[in-house]
C-alpha cells in the first residue's frame, strides 16, 4: 500500500505536534476553518465526491486483503482495518487522526505483538487510577455545590476521554482536539454511510436472481437514509 502523507502546505505539520497552539500562524487550512465552523467540515465529507473516492479506496483495500472467492474470506478485523485505512487515505493525511491511522497501519504488521502486550497492560491500569481520582473530586465538590471550577474539571475530563477516542489525539490542546473531532465525526459518518451502501448493494446483488428483486432491495436501502 502506498502511503503519501500530507498535501503541499500541511506537509510540515507532521514534524512537530507540540506546537498545536500556534498553528494559526502556519496557515494550515484546517485550523483556520475551525473558527468558520463545523459546517464546512460537514459539507466536505457529505459531498458525493468524497464518498465516491472512499468507495474506490475501500474496494482497493478490500481486494488487498485477498477477498473475492479465491483465497480465504477476510476477517471482520481485516475489513475494519481496510475501511479505516481507506478512510485515512481519503482524508489525504491532512488531519492528525488520518495520519495516525496511516502510521498505525504501516507499523502494526511489524510490531503487533509488542504493541498488544504493552498497550493492554497500560490500558487497564491508567483508567482505574484516573476514574478513582475523578470520582473523589466529584464527591468532594458535589458536597460544596457545583462551582465553575467543577464545570471546568468536568470539561477537562471529557476532553481527555475524547482525546482517547480520536486516533492520534491523546495529548492535544483543546482547540486542536475539537477541530480534529469535528473532522473525524464527519468522516466516520461518511464511512458508515458508504459501508452500509456497499453491504446493501452486495446483499442485493446476491439476492437477485431477477433484476426486479435487485431493484426492490436497492430501494429499501435508499429509504433507510
Amino acid at each position: 500500500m502506498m502511503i503519501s502523507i500530507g498535501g503541499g502546505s500541511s506537509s510540515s505539520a507532521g514534524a512537530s505536534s507540540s506546537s498545536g497552539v500556534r498553528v494559526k500562524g502556519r496557515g494550515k487550512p484546517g485550523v483556520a476553518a475551525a473558527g468558520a465552523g463545523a459546517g464546512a467540515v460537514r459539507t466536505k465529507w457529505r459531498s458525493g465526491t468524497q464518498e465516491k473516492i472512499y468507495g474506490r479506496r475501500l474496494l482497493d483495500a478490500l481486494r488487498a486483503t485477498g477477498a473475492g472467492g479465491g483465497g480465504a474470506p477476510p476477517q471482520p478485523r481485516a475489513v475494519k482495518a481496510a475501511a479505516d485505512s481507506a478512510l485515512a487515505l481519503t482524508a489525504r493525511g491532512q488531519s492528525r487522526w488520518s495520519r495516525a491511522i496511516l502510521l498505525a497501519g504501516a507499523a502494526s504488521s511489524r510490531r503487533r505483538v509488542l504493541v498488544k502486550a504493552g498497550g493492554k497492560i497500560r490500558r487497564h491500569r491508567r483508567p482505574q487510577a484516573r476514574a478513582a481520582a475523578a470520582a473523589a473530586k466529584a464527591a468532594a465538590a458535589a458536597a460544596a455545590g457545583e462551582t465553575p471550577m467543577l464545570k471546568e474539571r468536568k470539561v477537562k475530563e471529557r476532553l481527555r476521554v475524547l482525546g482517547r477516542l480520536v486516533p492520534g489525539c491523546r495529548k492535544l490542546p483543546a482547540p486542536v482536539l475539537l477541530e480534529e473531532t469535528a473532522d473525524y465525526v464527519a468522516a466516520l459518518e461518511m464511512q458508515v454511510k458508504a459501508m452500509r451502501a456497499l453491504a446493501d448493494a452486495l446483499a442485493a446483488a446476491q439476492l437477485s436472481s431477477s433484476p426486479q428483486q435487485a431493484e426492490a432491495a436497492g430501494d429499501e436501502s435508499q429509504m433507510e437514509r
Partner: protein
Amino acid sequence: MSSRRSRSRQSGSSRITDEQISDLVSKLQDLLPEARLRSNDRMPSSRVLQETCDYIRNLHREVDDLSERLSELLATSDMSSAQAAIIRSLLM
C-alpha cells in the same frame, strides 16, 4: 520534545480562554444528530463533549457491525460483483 509540550500546555491554559473553548464546543454541537433534532440553543460544554464521545463510540460500533456484515458478504461473493455493486451504489 516533552519540555516543549509542557510549556505549550502552560501557556496554553492562559492563552486559550474558556470562552474560546465553549465557542468551539458549541460549533461541535452542530455536528451532533441530537442538536438537529432538539434545535437546542445551548447545551453545557460538558454535555456536548459527553454526547460527542457517545456518538463516536456509536459510530465505531456501527463500523464494527458493518465490517462483520461485509466480511460475511465477501466470503460468498466475488470481487467483480463487489465492484459492480459499489459502482451501482455510488451512482444511486
